[in-house]
């Protein structure tokens, strides 16, 4: 047996850990590292929001540094949503902006030593379910029941089961894409730091830039883009 590899393999650690258990309706439920990391990300976002709120309330004619950053972020998200959704963008700027900032911060939180919350399927599946509910709520709102049934029986009525499977696959593929991308980054970084601990000095920074920053940003963009496309598709009536 290769003793060296096996011994150092003991340091490889990328799983979700339980922090402390508690009882809920007779079941033992664990608070895990994911909960802690989501909480930290949320605290950072809430702190940013409070600061942004204060600065926007006393908005100056000539914006300072922080006001500039806030305006830049809001304008960028507004343009992104407006460019994709067109006339349906009005009600969705808040939602898309929120999930964009949350997923982006979650993905790049690996840089700051956290385990990215999006590398837990519970988090990404919740995001996928939110998208699914939004899509179908808007479908019923804009196309009415008649339009939804007509959409289900698209070429012929016998096609309905396949259309239902296609609808159900949307949140699953959305959430699995985000989850697997971030998880692969987490596993690669854990392998590098676990197996090559002796020579992992400066060059892992390049891997961090790719796996955490580039991949995280791309996946955030893709998730929001696909969500917007699906919602616009659901809003469009014939």
């Amino acid at each position, binding site marked *: 047996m290769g003793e060296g590899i096996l011994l150092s393999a003991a340091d490889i650690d990328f799983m979700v850990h339980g922090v402390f258990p508690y009882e809920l309706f007779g079941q033992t439920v664990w608070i895990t590292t994911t909960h802690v990391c989501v909480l930290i990300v949320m605290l950072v976002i809430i702190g940013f929001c409070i600061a942004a709120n204060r600065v926007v309330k006393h908005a100056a004619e000539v914006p300072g540094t922080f006001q500039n950053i806030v305006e830049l972020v809001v304008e960028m998200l507004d343009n992104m949503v407006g460019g994709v959704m067109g006339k349906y963008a009005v009600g969705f700027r808040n939602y898309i902006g929120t999930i964009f900032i949350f997923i982006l911060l979650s993905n790049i939180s690996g840089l700051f030593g956290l385990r990215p919350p999006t590398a837990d399927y519970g988090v990404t599946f919740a995001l996928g379910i939110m998208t699914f509910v939004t899509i179908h709520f808007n479908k019923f709102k804009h196309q009415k029941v008649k339009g939804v049934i007509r959409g289900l029986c698209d070429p012929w009525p016998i096609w309905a089961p396949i259309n239902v499977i296609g609808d159900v696959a949307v949140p699953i593929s959305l959430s699995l*894409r985000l989850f697997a991308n971030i998880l692969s980054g987490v596993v690669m970084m854990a392998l590098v730091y676990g197996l090559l601990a002796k020579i992992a000095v400066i060059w892992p920074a390049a891997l961090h830039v790719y796996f955490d920053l580039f991949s995280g940003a*791309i996946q955030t963009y*893709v998730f929001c883009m696909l969500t917007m496309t699906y919602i616009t598709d659901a809003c469009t009536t014939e």
Partner: protein
Amino acid sequence: MEFNTNFILGCSAIGAGLAVIAGIGPGVGQGIAAGHAAAAVGRNPGAKSDVTSTMLLGQAVAETTGLYGLLIAMLLLFVKPLVP
């Protein structure tokens, strides 16, 4: 007939290796997308940013099938569903 745990672990490792072959498809697909994007930028350099963002979106979507293979490999290696 009885199999011991080590045999099942070895077979899981082989299965994980086979599952990761799924990465061939997305590799070819992303290469095709990148090649066509390069041709498009060569023909119309003004539309570089639009072409790049479209290419990245398409590549990220094409990557999904490879990631499914990766997930199967991860499940076989780390969750060990076949070990009794």
